[in-house]
């Protein structure tokens, strides 16, 4: 493991020991955060998957109704009916803190009627399709929020995992190695001083 490029002295040793304690504490905290994030992520991912599957089948039904309308009329007439919409959709975005990840929370307010066209030049199947689409919008937006949260949490998990790995496999072993090196160096210096002193003492005694 790569040793840090530091002067082997007692001051550096004590500084490194302090840093090692902080790194170990940080590693534990980040590891806990990562575990909690993964747990929350998996929960949301499971919910998101169920919701997406439900919505995809409902969307297929909506498109089927829309196709019925499309098949039975001139495409221009269908588009003409939808030129001016009567429905209004207000979207509010809030933020929620999940394990220090800011995930969006959308709320939607629907107003007006999606059926805003004359009945003589349009079809009943279009009413059915539009109502189905309108009913699906809040759930589609909820799915969007859920998937965005999953996305942000995945990025955060990846970031945390990198930090944990960096601490676990680079920083902490680096500190340990450097501390061991400085300790050895200091012990070596101490032994050298001791032997020098003994030698001097012996010379002095012989005279």
């Amino acid at each position: 493991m790569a040793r840090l490029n530091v002067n082997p002295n007692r001051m550096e040793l004590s500084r490194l020991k302090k840093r090692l304690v902080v790194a170990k504490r940080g590693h534990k905290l980040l590891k806990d955060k990562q575990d909690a994030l993964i747990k929350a992520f998996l929960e949301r991912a499971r919910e998101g998957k169920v919701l997406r599957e439900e919505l995809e089948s409902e969307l297929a039904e909506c498109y089927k109704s829309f196709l019925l309308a499309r098949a039975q009329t001139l495409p221009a007439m269908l588009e003409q009916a939808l030129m001016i919409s009567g429905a209004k959709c207000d979207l509010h975005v809030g933020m929620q803190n999940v394990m220090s990840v800011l995930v969006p929370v959308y709320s939607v307010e629907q107003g007006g009627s999606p059926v805003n066209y004359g009945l003589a030049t349009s079809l009943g199947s279009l009413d059915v399709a539009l109502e189905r689409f309108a009913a699906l919008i809040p759930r589609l937006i909820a799915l969007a929020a859920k998937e965005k949260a999953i996305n942000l949490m995945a990025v955060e998990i990846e970031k945390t995992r990198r930090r944990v790995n960096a601490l676990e496999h680079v920083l902490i072993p680096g500190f340990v190695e450097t501390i061991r090196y400085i300790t050895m160096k200091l012990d070596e210096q101490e032994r050298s001083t001791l032997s020098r002193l003994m030698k001097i003492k012996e010379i002095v005694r012989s005279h």
Partner: protein
Amino acid sequence: MAPAEQYGYAVARLRAMSGRLLEEALLQRILESEDLDSALKVLSETVYSSWLMELKGSGEFDRAIEAELLHVYGEVQKFVPDTALVQLCRLPYDFHNVKVLMKSALLVREGGERRFDLLTSLGNVPVDDLIMALESEDFRLLPFGLHQLVPHCFSVWEQSKDILEVEKLLDGGLFSAMRKLGAATGIEAASMWIRGKIDAENVRNLLRMKRMDMETGAVAGFLHDGGLISREKLLSLFSEPVESWSKILSFADVSKAFSHVQEINNLNSLVVEMEKVLDEYVADIVERAKYLAFGPENVISYLWKKEMEAKNLRIALVSVSNDTDRTLARGLFRHVG
């Protein structure tokens, strides 16, 4: 009305043209095609072949259907003694064009863009004339009561900003123009067909509003006068459950339509099913024309069948191009006879 003898040639031509209407077996073949290209290949064996050659891509099949319909309207108009009968069938397209231009004008005022691409040449009034009239706000020369209706619609929009009100006025104007045109021909069968068509439209609208759970007060605006069933009778129908409608309307021919529907409890599917059944009811009104050698109703009968053919073809091609459930599409086919 032109003398009945003059219809001899027209009816003979129409009988010959009826022979070229797409048969059910051919529609089934189209529907069973693997993809759109093979469906169009089957279609190219029919009168549609010349229009198919002009298409840039297979996805433009709607243009071929529209072109054939336009060609038929043009042909029939040339030899029919009373051209008003053809005008009658083309009238909904005029009102569609007016709606497109009005909505475009309203969108432009709010920073939107014009949608001239949605105009169709199937109407009686040339598209350029309509554009000119609406762009220059010179409505004087517009036919079918549009010269009064269009400025009225603009003023209603200015006051209410409610496009539904404008649409209701235009829909009302369409049926009023049809009634006037029918009465002007002096052909009893044409008037009866229009009355039957208004009944079918009213029943269809009532059903749609019932499904939407609309307030009773708002219903009257969507009903049209001039049908065989009075507006009051229809309004009283609205508060009754749909199951009892056929019984209450048993005095009118349109009640027969209810006997053809299967799922009367599910309003969503009932609305879709009734569209088909009521189209067939409108065709049945002039069905006796096939026994008349000089009957002007043959014109309406043929043109309505051509419209239904276009609808059937569109259903089949849309189903093939989107690879949807073929049984569903088969159930939507109108009986052309």
